[in-house]
């Protein structure tokens, strides 16, 4: 007799053929549904223990808040569980392959997180006397020096808070440089394949934006661009490598033509990761280029920021860069150049773009990444990123149309279109099919110059085995789309949610939670 199994429990495999009924909770084992904090928390609950406030006569100007704020609280265990459950409904690089083109979803090293959290950087105030923040200023300065060396440029503006903020910074430098010479140029030329932020940034600064066409090989049409140059053109904004995944091989000629016509060259550096260590933008005649630290230099994307967008500047534009900036004195001491001393050191600055010194927490992470790789490693980063993208391009061009496959090697990303799928099937179906296969889809419907664009950016931090499995999966999904498999139209089947109704969300926006009784009362 088995002494430890007297209750009748027997290991049993059950009948694997049965279909599962809906569960009572709506949960599916490890896939756990989670209500909103407003549905599970209460105003009387708190997860923080506070000292009692000493009794004093309030000096709040008779403006005490009496009405309920409506903020639910949770205890600490409930809080940790709530957000842990939410986190498990997210796809992330830590979980799997995330080939989102132009977004550069590479591994985020944890050393970077560790150094960013050192109290000496995380726990210092932006307005402390400069004598008490010499180490923080040193980090900014060291990163600035790396960025200048890697790009072969003259200076760098460190304060922009994200890529689009960096674009604005570069555009304002151009605007200021033109103003300094009394030149009223008002047109910025932008290729059709540009990120939407480019025209938006130029328009914000008061420029009118004109599109320039691409050639059939997916590059800027040099002849069309040159023909449009003239005394009204302030400059061009060109993404290089471009959003079709190609290097603009005429970049130097474009720069020379723009300069000869009196304009400036802005480069969207979102794709710098493809060429870091192989090409210096300064050698291509660029006047300004933002660098997304969250792309090339691996600071985490955090579900949509924070980013960081330092802008490297040519000698012509450096005098106009924003305040504040750090400077290193001959004695090794760091100073901050702010409005106070700008007249003396930086008199032509276009001014301040943000309250403080930029994204310090991103600077520490990016510098940690750059030092880890070093000059040799960064070159290898570009090479592996480009190798991985070409491997994907050449492994799939027989099953998916690759409109620019004939244009030579791609850079860090491979572009496909949805031409050749069965009637009624499109890029969206392929993307949703990939979700069921356990991948984050590629960038879809961008760039706009290709029908049903699919932009695949593997990055250098993926192994060959990962790429091989992805290639197999995308091939399988593409074949289903070409065969018109109806189950693909309803994908994803296995994600926490099926396809979501975006039309309804936009038609009657519900942007905040309201108590059910409030909703009833409102109707």
């Amino acid at each position, binding site marked *: 007799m088995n002494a430890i199994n007297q209750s009748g429990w027997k290991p049993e495999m059950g009948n694997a053929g049965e279909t599962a009924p809906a569960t009572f909770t709506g949960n599916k084992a490890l896939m756990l549904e989670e209500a909103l904090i407003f549905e599970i928390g209460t105003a009387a609950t708190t997860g923080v223990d506070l000292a009692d406030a000493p009794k004093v006569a309030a000096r709040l100007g008779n403006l005490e808040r009496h009405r309920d704020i409506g903020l639910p*609280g949770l205890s600490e265990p409930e809080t940790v569980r709530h957000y842990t459950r939410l986190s498990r409904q997210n796809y992330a690089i830590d979980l799997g392959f995330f080939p989102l083109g132009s977004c550069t979803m590479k591994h985020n090293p944890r050393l970077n997180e560790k150094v960013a959290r050192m109290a000496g950087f995380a726990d210092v105030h932006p307005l402390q006397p400069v004598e008490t923040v010499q180490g923080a200023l040193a980090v900014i300065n060291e990163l600035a020096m790396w960025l200048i060396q890697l790009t072969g440029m003259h200076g760098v503006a460190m304060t922009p808070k994200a890529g689009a903020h960096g674009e604005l910074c570069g555009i304002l430098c151009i605007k200021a440089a033109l103003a300094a010479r009394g030149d009223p140029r008002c047109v910025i030329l932008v290729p059709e394949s540009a990120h939407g932020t480019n025209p938006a940034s130029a328009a914000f600064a008061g420029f009118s934006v004109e599109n320039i066409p691409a050639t059939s090989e997916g590059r800027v049409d040099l002849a069309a661009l040159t023909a449009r140059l003239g005394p009204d053109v302030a400059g061009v904004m060109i993404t290089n490598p471009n959003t079709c995944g190609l290097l603009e091989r005429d970049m130097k000629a474009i720069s020379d033509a723009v300069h000869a016509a009196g304009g400036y060259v802005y480069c969207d550096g979102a794709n710098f990761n493809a060429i870091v260590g192989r090409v210096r933008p300064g050698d291509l005649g660029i006047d300004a280029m933002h660098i997304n630290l969250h792309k090339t230099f691996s600071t985490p994307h955090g579900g949509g920021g924070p980013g960081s967008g330092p802008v490297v500047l040519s000698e012509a534009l450096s005098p106009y860069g924003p305040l504040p900036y750090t400077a290193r004195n001959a004695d090794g001491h760091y100073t901050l150049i702010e409005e106070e001393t700008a007249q003396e050191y930086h008199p032509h600055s276009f001014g301040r773009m943000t309250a403080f010194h930029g994204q310090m927490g991103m600077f520490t992470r990016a510098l940690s990444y750059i030092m880890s790789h070093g000059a040799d490693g960064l070159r290898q980063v570009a090479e592996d990123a480009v190798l991985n993208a070409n491997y994907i391009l050449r492994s799939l061009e027989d099953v998916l149309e690759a409109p620019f496959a004939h244009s030579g090697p791609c850079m860090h990303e491979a572009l496909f279109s949805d031409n050749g799928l069965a009637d009624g099937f499109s890029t969206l179906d392929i993307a949703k099919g990939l979700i069921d296969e356990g991948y984050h889809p590629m960038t879809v419907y961008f760039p706009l110059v290709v029908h049903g664009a699919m932009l695949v950016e593997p990055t250098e931090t993926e192994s060959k085995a990962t790429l091989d499995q992805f290639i197999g999966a995308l091939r399988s999904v593409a074949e289903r789309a070409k065969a018109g498999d109806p189950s693909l139209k309803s994908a994803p089947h296995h994600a926490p949610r099926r396809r979501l109704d975006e039309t309804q969300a936009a038609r009657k926006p519900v942007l905040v939670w309201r108590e059910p009784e409030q909703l009833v009362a409102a109707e």
Partner: protein
Amino acid sequence: MRYLPLTPSDRHAMLGIIGAKSIDDLFVDVPAQARLDGPIRGLPNHASEMAVERHFSTLARKNMTASQHPFFLGAGAYKHHVPASVDHITQRGEFLTAYTPYQPEIAQGTLQMLFEFQTQVARLFGCDVANASMYDGSTACWEAIGMAGRITKRTKAVLSSGLHPHYVSVAKTMARYTGDTLDTALPDLSAKTDSVRLLDAIDGETSCVVVQYPDILGRIEDLSAIAAKAHEHGALLIAVVTEPVALGAIKAPGDMGADIVVGEGQSLGVGLQFGGPYVGLFACKEKFVRQMPGRLCGETVDAQGKRGFVLTLSTREQHIRREKATSNICTNSGLCALAFSVHLTLLGEKGLRGLAQLNHALAVQAADRLTQIAGVELVNDSFFNEFTLKLPKEARPVVRALADHEILGGVSLGRLYPGTDALSKGLVVAVTEVVTSEDVETFAVALQEILA
């Protein structure tokens, strides 16, 4: 190189499949004169994790940290205790290493969090709706001015003299390029704000009035009269909150008639971080929602009728509207929004009110102690956790002298308004729950000695 998984044999095999002889074949499009033939000279090569960490430790030690010293700085960035679970949650890879939720079926975690964040911000500010965050308070403030211009089709913005001078600088930079005119003034070192100036300046050309609450000197003022006058003339009231913890104690700007309320959310969850990344808060009345900048998360249902969340109203945004977008913003401050939201969830209504009361009471006690020093006067009649002292001499060297005593003793108005003699004796002092009574005593003793 520990972050690169490809092996030499992988690279060789892959080049073979691609049909390239060497990696250089893939870079043929680089013009010959711009090709680098090897690693950039003069830069160090790769380094071990230990070596990198050692370098940062050395630099970190050169900074005087807030938690290891009596600490009284504010003026737009505040030191609060952040519960340990906040950082634990923001370090979860599923939040940390996710992207903007473009594929909602596999991003419900981020989207639901943003929906909760938007609701928390709207309620805290007394507004109908809020967006999914901006870069920081200063850029949110400028975006609000731009939005008011779009709504009113006017270009004159009247800025309170109590608005953070760096926020004013940012607005000035941007206004120079958009054609907006800004009516600005310097603050007086007095208990009275410039609300009379604001009321006088509002006219039929005014797009908005911008008032910080509490203001740069810590003063708190009822915004109702300014809101009424603005609305009478078809202008909007924008309130700017740089210390959201204050709204656990004082009325929400939205409840006093503000049309747009923006703020810096750094106080909750994010930490000081030498100025960034922070998180811009942006809320407004529902009728203005289609003029808002930035990402918005909205509720909807999936194909099976289950509740879910998506990014919505993207026709306002740059990736659809390009040069006609309401803003060029793309990335926001998602992870900092998460930190803010987790901290506020841990606090809840009860905790936020308790925290606000504690901050105010400690600030009142500190103000009473510091004004016992001969020649030191309190400028404010009203304040929350931050007040301005008028010292008998210039405050900026005093702050430096306090640092020599290992005390981080506030922000001098000389730092914020360099060259303005009338403000040079002002010292802005913030007192939060992290300040102990011993800290206040240490500060008071040192200040007395320095002033003597």
